[in-house]
């Protein structure tokens, strides 16, 4: 029978040391949705990093003749209200979105892990005070807080045209040099480490009570080494996964802020800003909102699939 393939004699399995990370990688590669998400993201990252070579046109300059132009051979995705090539702007816009997602997650990760680890490991009064602080921060509505922060940054720090002085000036200069991205990072970073801190604290508490920590104490391992060699590595996996799952949220924050005009400075393209530029003419020129909206959706899907895949790979016992 043709469909019965001859089975290859199985090679004797070599006893290779398998770390948990390598095991997780193997499981991740078996998850098709996650791999698809990963491939999409790789393409996006490639395009974003090499935007200068990939994008067919400049993102700042357009031709008046091409205002609102629909898709054509020269401009596959059409042009926006200023005749700028949509494809090029989308590609450059990926930089902002990905950067917002990654930097947001990274900042939240660093602050959250440090805070949670200290709080959980030292316990007692330290823990109590630190967690009450988190509780208070939690009471603010995140989005509102980000909006307020952005308004504050934009209005009081970036004095347009006038070179501000001192610390404020430095901040606003950095922000201007980054096309308005810096304050987005800052806003997201300040507000989004709380969940991570709580998670890491909880994990630390549970790891701290395991027998291998007790064994380490019985051996006479110094506290610092227990913290970094025994507790931290066991907390890191879930902490990373949690932040990977947060990335889509951060991308959405950026898009939203840019949409309401608190994000990047024009002419820096961001998907959220493209949406906001396009929605006025949405009825007659639907492509203006279609592409950036699609770009956001696909990116979010990709991150979600990959994030879920990573989570499942690290914890195969947990089923959805």
């Amino acid at each position, binding site marked *: 029978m043709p469909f019965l393939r001859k089975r290859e004699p199985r090679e004797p399995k070599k*006893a290779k*040391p*398998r*770390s*948990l990370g390598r095991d997780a990688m193997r499981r991740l590669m078996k998850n098709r949705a996650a791999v698809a998400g990963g491939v999409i993201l790789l393409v996006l990252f490639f395009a974003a990093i090499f935007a200068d070579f990939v994008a067919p046109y400049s993102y700042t300059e357009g031709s008046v003749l091409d205002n609102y132009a629909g898709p054509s051979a020269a401009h596959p995705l059409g042009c926006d209200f200023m005749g700028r090539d949509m494809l090029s702007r989308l590609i450059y816009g990926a930089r902002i979105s990905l950067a917002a997602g990654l930097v947001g997650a990274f900042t939240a990760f660093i602050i959250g892990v440090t805070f949670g680890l200290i709080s959980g490991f030292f316990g007692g009064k330290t823990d109590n005070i630190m967690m009450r602080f988190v509780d208070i921060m939690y009471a603010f509505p995140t989005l509102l807080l980000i909006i307020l922060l952005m308004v504050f940054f934009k209005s009081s720090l970036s004095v347009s045209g006038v070179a501000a002085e001192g610390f404020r000036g430095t901040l606003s200069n950095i922000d201007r040099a980054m096309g308005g991205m810096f304050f987005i990072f800052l806003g997201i970073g300040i507000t989004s480490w709380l969940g991570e801190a709580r998670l890491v604290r909880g994990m630390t508490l549970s790891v701290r009570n*395991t*027998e*291998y920590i*007790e*064994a*380490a*104490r*019985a*051996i*006479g*391992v*110094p506290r610092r*080494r227990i913290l970094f*060699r*025994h507790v931290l*590595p*066991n907390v890191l996996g879930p902490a990373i996964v949690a932040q990977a799952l947060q990335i889509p949220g951060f991308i959405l924050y950026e898009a939203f802020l840019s949409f309401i005009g608190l994000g990047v400075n024009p002419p820096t393209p961001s998907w959220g800003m493209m949406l906001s530029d396009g929605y006025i003419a949405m009825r007659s020129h639907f492509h203006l909102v279609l592409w950036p909206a699609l770009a956001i959706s696909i990116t979010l899907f990709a991150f979600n699939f990959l994030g879920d895949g990573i989570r499942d790979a690290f914890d195969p016992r947990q089923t959805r």
Partner: protein
Amino acid sequence: MEKNVLLQVEGLVKHFPLRKGTFRRSKAAVRAVDGIDLFIREGETLGLVGESGCGKTTAGRSILRLLEPTAGRILFRSRRMAEAMSAGAEGVDVAKATPRQMHALRRDMQIIFQDPYSSLNPRMTVGAIVGEPLLVHNLARGSAREDRVLEVLTAVGLKAEHMKRYPHEFSGGQRQRIGIARALVLEPQLVVCDEPVSALDVSIQAQVLNLLEDLQREFGLTYLFVAHNLSVVKHISGRVAVMYLGRIVELASTERLFADPRHPYTEALVSAVPVPEPDITVERIILEGDVPSPVNPPPGCHFHPRCRYAIETCRTQAPTYRDLGEEHFVACHRSEELRLQPARSK
């Protein structure tokens, strides 16, 4: 302190305060260990038995100062501490040791845990787990450390190729061997075995018990063997201490304890040991009720609400813990008059 006594525990108490309310004031305490006395001679195995929650694990951990004892003295004749070795010295009081002394003492007293799954760090290789004690005590580096780790792994029945693997690649019995290797790599004198076989399959239990006995002979180890399985304890220990609700109720050599129990609780425990002999029928004593809460233990003898021999004195006065002769210690008002039923034997 006798010359060959390695560890002498006097009046060890461990209370866990219960904190409640906004200001976390301590209102009551769990009296996990409520004053125990025992000693262990060099090279012997002292079994410590009792039902769940009687404080036997807490006692073991307090002796190693993994838990801070509330009161009592833990005199330990550490091989490496000069003042402990001088003539007439009572040994180091572990309960009062400074952090620096404690660090040095840890080389001589180690612990083997019950759960072979949670007692090994999943992020470290076996080589790193067993080598860590050498690292933190600065005893061997590089290839010398590796050699030593390999030596210990071989002694517990593992192989060189296992060194680079991670704990999740091993079976329960193998993992327990890794835990034993970690405890032995520092060449300790005293090893507290905290229910080392309770989490293993019965077939593996025997292997690990035999290994522990072999290692004891080979390295001259002294064991404090905490367990709730009387058959296991009977097999491995030379002397047995029976705990009930934070106190030792009886302590005697294994033969005596089983042949001539002097405390009603021991009698009940001993009667529950199954004997693989269908013809033997001896009355099995079933204790009524539950173990009272260690937060407010009953007055007098802790055991009186469940004791079928209890008299008025038992309700009001705590019995003294005394030697009936030949190191048969017991804490019961009626030890001398009662004729209790010995263990069934083949």
